[in-house]
């Protein structure tokens, strides 16, 4: 049983980072294996488009490959990875908004309504390049469409908490926010999402 525990857990993140810094590519491969689903999930749920999410997630891991030698271990590897994910997703959203609105850059914190509808549309039309055999469950579709109704800030933080299961402290480290701010933002995001969900569910019930 101990062996299987060891198998399940494998080497620690710190150990993998150390080995990678020593030139061991296998350690990097293990890091990718360990975090690929979480990184992909964050990108997919944030950006909405599977193809874009794959690209961004891949960019994240390439960036990690290049930056890991400089990783000093002041924070946990997972925290650091999510910081990279956050930056990449924000950059991608910004890029898409700029493309959608010419060179006009929206005010910080304002909601680009048109763009925020994109995830739901894109998921509904999941086209080539995605796995057509995987039928998205109604519940998953509901979750995804509802997340698309939140603004970036809310979606980001509720994903970290409820999907990635990060603690308030970890989220604070990733977003560089004090705990109190994390607490109030999570509550606003979850309350907003709850309201969206109840509207959608009651609407579907009527139909």
């Amino acid at each position, binding site marked *: *049983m101990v*062996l*299987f525990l*060891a*198998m399940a857990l*494998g*080497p620690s993140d710190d150990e993998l980072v150390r080995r*990678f*810094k*020593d*030139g*061991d*590519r*296998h350690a*990097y*491969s*293990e890091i*990718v*294996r360990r975090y*690929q689903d979480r*990184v*992909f*999930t964050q990108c*997919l*749920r944030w950006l909405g488009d599977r193809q874009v999410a*794959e690209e961004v*997630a*891949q960019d994240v*891991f*390439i960036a990690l*490959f*290049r930056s890991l*030698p400089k990783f000093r271990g002041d924070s946990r590897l997972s925290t650091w990875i999510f910081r990279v994910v956050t930056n990449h997703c924000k950059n991608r959203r910004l890029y898409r908004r700029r493309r959608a609105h010419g060179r006009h850059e929206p005010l910080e914190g304002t909601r680009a309504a048109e763009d925020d509808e994109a995830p739901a549309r894109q998921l509904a039309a999941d086209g080539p390049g995605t*796995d*057509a*055999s995987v039928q998205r*469950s109604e*519940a*998953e579709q*509901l*979750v995804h469409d509802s997340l698309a109704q939140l603004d970036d800030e809310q979606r980001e933080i509720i*994903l970290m*908490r*409820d*999907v990635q*299961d990060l*603690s*308030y402290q970890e989220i604070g480290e990733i977003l560089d926010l004090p705990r109190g701010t994390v*607490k*109030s933002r*999570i*509550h*606003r995001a*979850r*309350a907003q*999402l*709850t*309201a969206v*969900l*109840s509207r959608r569910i009651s609407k579907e019930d009527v139909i």
Partner: protein
Amino acid sequence: MSTGFADERLSAYVDGELDAAERKRLELELERDPELRAEVEALQATQSLLQRHGPAVAPTDFRVRVLEAVADEPVSAPWWAWLRRPFGLPSEGLLVAAVAVAVLWVAIPEPPAPVAESTDLGAARLDWETKKAPPSPDDAGLADEAPAVAEEAEPAPVTPRPKAPLATKKMERLPTKSAEATKVLPEPPKQAPAGTADAAEPKKLVGGHRFRIETSEPDAQFVLQRIAAQYQSVATTLQGERLAGTEFANGGDLQVVVQLPHSALSNFEEDLAELGVVSTEFDKSLFNTSTIPVTIHLQLDTKPTSRGRKPGVDEAAVE
């Protein structure tokens, strides 16, 4: 709901982030206030929905693509890294190797006889090294991920291996000898599916036990990749006590070679189940008769999947 979720303590309560005093105070309020309680339940329902339906799974070939993308990039190892990992040895490897060389130099006047590895572990190890040593288009990616131990020695001849006492320091840590392994765990009748061209494979897959597995995963190849990845990391960590490798052959039929101690075998099936294997043909009695490591070859039953897509060998081999 009438309060519109004004109280941000509710989410912190749902998340278990309130301190004991706050939590107790809020619970007293919840007992008295059904509306507040309804809000908590709504928030919990939202959280539960996200937890269950939020996580997604990366595409099966995602890691392969990432590794390909960085394949040409050098790992920025510090200049002293070569001191720590000569020829892929772990950090302690240099010292161990130096001591071993010194002992041989002093104690053995004549060159030692060629090392012959004869246990199942040896077989697995040779299988592994054989695969890793001569890089080919099919296993180029695997070579990248080879455990350190794979780079430690010269590629060994594939067949046949003479039975001989263990000769390496690492092997001495194994609990029993190969003769016992062979006797107690005889090669069972072949269980590989028809058409897998066994005749072409024994060259590499010497010894051990073969089992056919089926999986519910649409991409069965992915299951084997996961199994291989899991045990590769163990092999790397445990340095020669347990080894694992992958075997890709016959244009898509895959095998995983796993070397496990007997103590692990009772849970092996469960472990596979967690990795998506739903059907196995394990003869568990084999696992109850010995305390020695066992080599297992898992033969994938590659039948058409619901996706109608069977990943090519190249895709898997990179893994």
